[in-house]
């Protein structure tokens, strides 16, 4: 759906659900990092560039606790 209506895609992380597995950092190191103290996800790039969309979606699907989502701006669903 990227670019269909010029919508921007945004990455969101639910830090309460995050278990700090680091799978997102391994999958998309340019987009995610982990907090030094508790290992929880830090989103580095909120608004995705076109080239980053595939890696972001991969990170969403590999996250072990479903803590990540990619949505068009204004949408609330985390489904990809």
């Amino acid at each position, binding site marked *: 759906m990227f670019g269909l209506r010029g919508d921007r895609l945004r990455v969101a992380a639910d830090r309460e659900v995050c*278990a*700090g*597995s*680091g*799978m997102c*950092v*391994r*999958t998309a*190191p340019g987009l995610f*990092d*982990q*907090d*030094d*103290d*508790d*290992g*929880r996800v830090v989103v580095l790039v909120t608004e995705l560039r076109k080239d980053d969309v595939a890696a972001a979606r*991969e990170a969403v*699907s*590999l996250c*072990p*606790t*479903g803590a990540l989502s990619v949505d068009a701006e204004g949408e609330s669903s985390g489904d990809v």
Partner: protein
Amino acid sequence: MSDTTVGLEQPPRRHRFPDGHLGWLVTGYAAGRAILADPRFSQRPLRAVGGIDDGGFQEALSGPESAGDLLRIDPPDHTRLRRLQTGYLTVRRVAEHREAVEGVVAACLDGMEEAGRPVDLVEMFAYPVPSLVLCDLLGVARSERARFERPTGVLVDYAGSSPEQKKLAMDEFYAYIRGVIEEKRVQPGDDMLSELIAIGELSDDELAGVAFFLFAGGHHTTATMLSLSAFFLLSERERWEVMRSDPAGIDRAVEELLRYLNPINDPLPRTALEDVEIEGVVIKAGETVALLTAQPSGDPDRVEDLGRFDPSRDPATGHLAFGHGRHMCLGQHLARLELQVALEGLMRRFPTLHLATAAADVPLRRYAFPEHGGNPDLHGVEHLLVSW
């Protein structure tokens, strides 16, 4: 090897455990992954792995120190304890340990050379590498590794050691580690255990349990994976040569070894906390689910031909070698680093490494109930005699 996963893609089915309890057996990828990620399932052990007679294994781990064992607790305690430890094992933090891990691997390779061929790779390499790395992480002398290895060795000798021996081994370990904790409270070092003590949020029981969890979770598993990988690569020389010819592909190759060999047989049974519907069946509150995730693992929708070993495969396979959900392996990045550096080191130092016995004569730890002489948690090799 044929594709062994196909026959396992079935819905959850009723299973009567050997202790008489009626629960569920889940072998399908999607259902297993969903259950591992579902907070409505508890990880607190109500019964032994698979409901079998485990020779007192679970009983020996049920003392007050289990409050610190991430594999045996649920939120909110699990969340609190995991967050305190995760900062030490992030992708970035682990990458900083590369040089130290290389040093440990080089020392173990030196030891093999000094001992002279043939050597048992399990004893001289696969166990010392993760054990010594963990000694450094926890801040205990490397000469103390036997203190940690002994209780694990007694515990996983399910049928070979008595319940009393298992309990005694754990009592000895906890007495030892409580002494270490006292020393570090007075004289902290630059290590994970000292810092966890200094935070002041963990009880002494929890600290002792954390130390056991980190060591037990980090050495037996990695050692098993490392020696099983070496056996797999050396038993068909082409695999070893292919991997040796592509040092840049080590990350992919290790990920594929994890996916393909996946030595974890059962990531502990889960218990439903409420009624949960999975693939059309309702698992009722209080029922136990055994998950069999061993076998070439991975998402059948993501990976072509799961039963084929392909070290150049895209590493994002969704394999379950490190589990899934909130209990996903805390040390997975450290394990990857150790496996990569160890296999690289072996291939560089001993390019002509080969099995010193026929592959068929290598003693295996098979997946089987203890009364059948097997091991219900990890499969691998007992010993691996190699030469060069």
